[in-house]
């Protein structure tokens, strides 16, 4: 089977986007439901239960996390800049922005580890009531997603340095970007409902 024949029906029926992008969006739909289970349980346990909930700022360090939020948003911007560079075929800027993104993501995870160590040191554990349970489960799984993202992003960056992505072939960058922004988006929600409310 020739590639031309395979490509012919790529664009005929279908969603009008290429496979990997559609696949990633479909996967993200699934991720929405995963976080719905975790965040939904948090909402149910916190707002449905009669027991009082500790004020988050008395337990958690809001300024540090606000800074961390800022770092993650910045890495989202650098990601989208990398994508724009890839589309334009600008190899130098592509590599630069990807590197910035990887560093941003790694920093976020690092700060989270620091935050966890600090909290555990202060005896705030997953077993510390419903707040501890939900806090560590939600932020932990978000952190896990960021870590996975950093690993994949590192791989994409290495590929970029090898010159894999061109003006014609930027799909890898776009698809990992979608995942990255999604993880950012989840954090935006988590930061608000876990730390601020």
């Amino acid at each position, binding site marked *: 089977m020739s590639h031309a024949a395979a490509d012919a029906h790529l664009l005929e029926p279908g*969603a*009008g*986007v290429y496979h990997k992008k*559609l696949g990633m*969006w*479909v996967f*993200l*739909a*699934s991720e*929405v*439901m995963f976080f*719905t289970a975790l965040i*939904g349980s948090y*909402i*149910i346990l916190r*707002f*449905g*239960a*009669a027991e009082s909930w500790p004020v988050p*700022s008395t337990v958690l360090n*809001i*300024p540090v996390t*606000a800074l961390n*939020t*800022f770092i993650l*948003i*910045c890495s*989202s*911007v650098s*990601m*989208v*800049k990398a994508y*724009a560079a890839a*589309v334009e075929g600008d190899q130098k800027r592509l590599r630069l922005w990807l590197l910035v993104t990887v560093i941003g993501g790694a920093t976020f995870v690092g700060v989270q580890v620091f935050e966890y160590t600090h909290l555990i040191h202060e005896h705030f554990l997953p077993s510390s009531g419903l707040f501890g349970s939900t806090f560590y489960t939600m932020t932990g799984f978000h952190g896990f997603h960021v870590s996975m993202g950093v690993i994949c992003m590192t791989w994409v960056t290495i590929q970029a340095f090898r010159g894999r992505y061109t*003006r014609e072939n*930027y799909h890898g960058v776009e698809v990992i*970007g*979608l995942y990255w*922004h*999604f993880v*950012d*988006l989840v954090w*935006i*929600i988590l*930061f*608000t*409902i876990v*730390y*601020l*409310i």
Partner: protein
Amino acid sequence: MESTEHKHPNYMAVWAVLFVMTVIEVGVAMLSHIPRALLVLVLLGLAIWKAVLVAMYFMHLKFEPRRLLFVVLAPLPLAVILVVIVLQEFPG
């Protein structure tokens, strides 16, 4: 192909808006004297607005075929159904 269909939006402007909104959020959260219901409403509103900005511009949903929007929106009603119905169960 797809890349030429739209010009890149001004990503730095989006970033600036996100930054300002985060600052506002933290600021609002630190105000202690506003009613709690209002606080929750404002914070949630800001968070959702930020999330929509990220989806629309960074994930360029705004520039994708309309059909893709179905994929993205499909889980949202389910999420709402789940949480709202189970909350009926435990009216705190």
